[in-house]
């Protein structure tokens, strides 16, 4: 009997409140925004906050009301941007996909370790003590704060070198690791970029080489070697202008420490279609590396000095040059020879 009373009372209360709620929901009904809902549907829904809005709902709201661009979601990249562009009726320029890149190669195997750090396994804590236990104060501390904040499982600390590694396929460029890193070792860089400068230490060459075998010593050979003026020296460090860089990878070939790093496996080589070539010599004159041989009105051939910059393919009036993956790596000795032959006039190098 007692229990029946309790059930009835609570049930009755619930029923009354239910009716009340229905009435309130009717009175305060908010007109639905179909555009916002469609945008929300197109977003990835990870609620990572990379866009700067509170979750995907906030981002969808901002896009639908026009406060944010259709490319606001850094995680979705160009795919999502295109979908949202269709919903909003806005044309989308292809956005270059960016990935977090570790600007340091100084693992424990290459960068000197000052002392054994036994404190809290946290980069912020380690950075306070004696400027970190790495000799280089710009080095990755490798205690994995970025790994812990990454919602996409894209970051791993290499157990052997204690260096952070990013999986470019999994990285969604939300930028959380970049905010987290006390050393500012991570940076968003275009994924398609095959050449990257991976050192942030602006100190004198001797000081750098005493600390780390992978550090930039400021020799400026990369800037002198670059045929496209894509490298400028800022604060003793080379800075690559990614719009000018054509991934010829010559800078990485001449770099003595390997701080300028290129993915040589992805290097291309030009191939001339012998049936179409009319021997105009335009490609030969365009090539800055002496990689194209052949006389006027004769078929031209590409030799091993080709760096895969693709300048010839753009210039060829018959469109008979295609860029293909290399079968074997370019011989660096050829590179040195070519560098000597086609050295730029001194006036062109940046005095800074």
């Amino acid at each position, binding site marked *: 009997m007692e229990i029946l*009373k*309790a059930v009835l*009372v*609570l049930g009755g*209360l*619930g029923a009354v*409140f239910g009716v*009340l*709620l229905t009435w*309130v*929901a009717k009175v*305060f*009904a*908010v007109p639905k925004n179909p555009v916002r809902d469609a945008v929300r549907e197109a977003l990835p829904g990870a609620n990572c906050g990379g866009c700067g809005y*509170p979750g995907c709902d*906030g981002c969808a*709201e901002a896009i639908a009301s026009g406060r944010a661009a259709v490319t606001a979601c850094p995680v979705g990249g160009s795919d999502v941007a295109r979908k949202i562009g269709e919903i909003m009726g806005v044309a989308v320029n292809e956005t270059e996909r960016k990935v977090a890149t570790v600007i340091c190669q100084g693992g424990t195997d290459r960068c000197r370790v000052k002392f054994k750090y036994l404190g809290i396994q946290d980069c*912020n804590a380690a950075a*306070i003590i004696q400027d970190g236990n790495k000799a280089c104060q710009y080095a990755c501390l490798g205690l994995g704060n970025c790994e812990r904040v990454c919602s996409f499982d894209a970051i791993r600390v290499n157990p052997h070198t204690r260096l952070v590694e990013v999986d470019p396929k999994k990285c969604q460029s939300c930028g959380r690791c970049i905010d987290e890193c006390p050393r500012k070792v991570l940076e968003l860089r275009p994924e398609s970029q095959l050449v990257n400068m991976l050192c942030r230490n602006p100190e004198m060459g001797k000081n750098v080489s005493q600390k780390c075998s992978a550090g930039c010593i400021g020799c400026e050979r990369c800037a002198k070697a670059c045929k496209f003026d894509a490298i400028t020296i800022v604060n003793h460090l080379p800075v690559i202008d990614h719009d000018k860089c054509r991934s010829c990878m010559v800078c990485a070939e001449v770099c003595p420490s390997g701080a300028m790093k290129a993915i040589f496996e992805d290097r291309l080589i030009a191939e001339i279609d012998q049936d179409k070539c009319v021997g105009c010599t335009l490609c030969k004159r365009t090539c800055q590396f002496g990689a194209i041989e052949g006389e006027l009105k004769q078929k031209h051939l590409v030799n091993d000095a080709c760096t895969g910059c693709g300048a010839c393919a753009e210039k060829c009036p018959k469109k008979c040059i295609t860029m293909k993956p290399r079968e074997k790596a370019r011989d660096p000795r050829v590179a040195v020879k070519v560098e000597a032959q086609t050295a730029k006039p001194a006036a062109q190098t940046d005095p800074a």
Partner: protein
Amino acid sequence: MNTFLVILIGQILINNYVMCQFYGICPFLGVSKKVDTALGMGMAVTFVITLASFITWLVQNFILVPLELEYLQTIAFILVIAVLVQVVENALKKLSPSLYQALGVYLPLITTNCVVLAVAQKNVTEGAIMDGQTLGLLASTFCGFCAAIGFTLALVLLAGIRERMEQSNMPKWMEGFPGALIMAGLMAIAFMGFGGLLQGLHLVG
């Protein structure tokens, strides 16, 4: 009249629910980043607590006590609070979308905000300390309203302090929550000073 003065000062300063009884710490830290949001949250909570005090008093005295179902108090009160929060959420969505956005997840969390349930329950049970009598409907509602004002006061004060802390040069390990927690502790100590007001109130009485 005197009862109301005692309730006013007692609930806001002497027995402040946040600073002296440590209820509602979650929104106290969560929504105290900006004074504007803190004020909005305080108003939402004030609305919920005042109405909840009113309705729970009715539920207690006209339903639970006559039917001898006082043991269902917690469930019944939570039911009332949940409905009220839902009403507030719907209303805010319609009337002030910007405040609704700013409060975010903390708005539905008022349901589980312990300060709301604590005020409702203490009003109908411990409220009896007033001269050995249970508080009347009006006094009970006023009591809840004052408790909510006390909550708002604590929230806005901390938000003001935190806004200034954002501007100042704090050590890295003090930024954000650690600093806020230390400030909250100092504020709680400061509020202990209001305990002396009790004697003054007795003199007035």
